[in-house]
């Protein structure tokens, strides 16, 4: 430490003449032991970490992609290739037959149409009703609000399996006891009615998201609208919804995904209506019925995988397409939608 002033003088004189490397060396000499150790450690981690990171990401990415790769690999091969031990990933006989047969067995295009109409219809009404409710919870104070909000939390926590059975009898004899009752089972109303009233699939979560989101919006927006003589409902439609557009889109996308994937609620209430998820669950029997005209046909189970994987593939293809196109809204939407905080 004693010779530091000397060194400082030296640098002041000669700094211009020294090369970059020498200057750096001089700088290093002035550093304490801890600083040097820190720098050394940092340079090592900076070099090693990217490789380590790449290894982790690729390895785990493989775990996620594996089923998809396998799906694609299976869906385009002939069924005989399944029993061929030399075929691992790349099919020996490339063919579109399996896909075509699966599409036929699932009656895919009609099923897809039904599913899309049902999904999008339910999602639209559900997003709207949940947004209304969330806004009510976020901006108004009324008696019993806390208790009612506890019910929202309960809706998130209670698994559907607990209430599905009484719900079934509710729909089976829908109406007022003693006055009238209709059988709603198999009707699409079993999906639409809960969705319209904010009780559809995972609606508790959606109400919570909207509540958090609306709470985070500046109050001045509404105050301005109120002063201009706008009623609360019109304020909600005219001011809040346009400002919340991106979060609406995110919640809508998730809602579509959840409805698309649902097979539990739909198996409970539908016996004839066909959705993609239901058809996939029943693919086995459908295959036998439609392809072989025989319900007890014996397909080599190993070869049946081909159809199963093809079914999976065409089943998630629309979702994947949507995901690829709208990826941003899936992931960045959540950050903005205010579930944060």
């Amino acid at each position, binding site marked *: 430490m004693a010779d530091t002033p000397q060194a400082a003088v030296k640098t002041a004189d000669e700094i211009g003449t020294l090369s970059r490397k020498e200057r750096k060396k001089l700088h290093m000499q002035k550093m304490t032991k801890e600083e040097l150790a820190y720098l050394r450690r940092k340079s090592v981690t900076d070099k090693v970490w990217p490789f380590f990171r790449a290894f982790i990401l690729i390895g785990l990415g493989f775990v996620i992609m594996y089923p998809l790769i396998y799906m694609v690999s299976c869906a385009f091969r002939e069924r005989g290739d399944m029993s061929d031990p030399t075929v691992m990933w790349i099919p020996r006989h490339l063919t579109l037959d399996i896909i075509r047969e699966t599409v036929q067995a699932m009656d895919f295009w009609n099923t897809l149409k039904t599913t899309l109409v049902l999904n999008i219809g339910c999602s639209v009404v559900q997003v709207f009703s949940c947004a209304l409710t969330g806004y009510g919870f976020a901006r108004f104070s009324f008696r019993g609000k806390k208790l009612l909000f506890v019910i929202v939390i309960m809706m998130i926590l209670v*698994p559907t399996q607990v*209430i599905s059975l*009484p719900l079934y009898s509710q729909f089976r004899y829908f109406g007022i006891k003693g006055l009238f009752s209709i059988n709603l089972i198999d009707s699409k109303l079993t999906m639409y009615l809960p969705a319209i009233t904010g009780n559809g699939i995972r609606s508790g979560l959606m109400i919570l998201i909207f509540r958090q989101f609306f709470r985070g919006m500046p109050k001045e927006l509404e105050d301005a609208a109120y002063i201009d003589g706008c009623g*609360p409902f019109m304020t909600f439609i005219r001011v809040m919804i346009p400002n919340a557009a991106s979060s609406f889109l995110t919640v809508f996308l998730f809602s579509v995904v959840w409805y698309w994937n649902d097979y539990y609620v739909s198996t409970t209430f539908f016996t004839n209506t066909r959705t993609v998820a239901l058809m996939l669950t029943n693919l086995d029997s459908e295959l036998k019925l439609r392809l072989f005209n025989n319900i007890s046909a014996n397909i080599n189970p190993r070869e049946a*995988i081909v159809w199963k994987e093809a079914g999976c593939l065409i089943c998630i293809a629309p979702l994947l397409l949507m995901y690829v196109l709208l990826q941003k809204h899936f992931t960045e939407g959540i950050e903005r939608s205010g579930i*944060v905080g």
Partner: protein
Amino acid sequence: MSSKKARKLPYQRRKALYGYGFISLWLVGTVIFFLIPLIQSLRYSFCEVKVNPGSLETEFAGLKKYIYALNEDQYYTEYLSSTLLETLWKTPLILIFSLFIAVILNQKFRGRTFARAVFFLPVIIATGPVFKIISGDMSKTGNTGAQRFSTMFSTDLIGELMEFLGIYGLSDKMNTMISAVADNIFGIVWSSGIQIILFLAALQNIPSSAREAAEVEGATAWEYFWKITFPYVTPFILANFIYTVIDSFTSPMNQVMNRILELKSQWDFGEASAMAWIYFAIVLAAIGIVTFIVNKFVYYEVD
């Protein structure tokens, strides 16, 4: 003064009425589609339920169904304990794993968008029947070949990865160990989609000034994680915890739920309801305890 108060009070009451107006649609739906069925199912669990064509007949039976579920049903307690145990060790692992991945995905590197897209992929698949097939729950179809396929799929995963990378001939013991880990890695990776998104959202809330300050002070990555990252994400740990636990309800691998569904399809509604309520009560109690403890220690910056 009094006139001002008189004007103010109706306004507040009016606002309260509007509040009811906004939630009324939901309230009606909740009573019909949530509260009544919930109470019904609780009632079923205390009743002998007979299914007649045209109606359900119930007869009060006290705690009989609960006693049956816990003492007599040959699968229930076994499934219950194994499922609870699995939730117990899997939930922390999922939380740690998703936080770790979120930290990595929050760094800047080439191909980050693609990596994120891959890691969020389970979000759109893992709730559906496709996942059911992927994760190999084929018991419903009784398809032996499919079972073989699923075992191949889950246990040989790492083996194949090794072969893929050109590593052969690991010892048997090593193999079984690796395959056990691989089996669980699959489950964990596939059930962390939403959790990663939420943690990532939290990480992006960390102001860049915090990072700069830490760098100027010479904090190591480790210190940075514990002193800055961790406090910022703690509020999300609770949210993610609850989400993970709830998600385990709907997992196709959940044996308790499968058993309940099985009984339901045999029209044993009373038993099924009792089992569902026991399971639900235990999980709810666990969530309550954890929430209570966490809330004592977590500092919320924003309410």
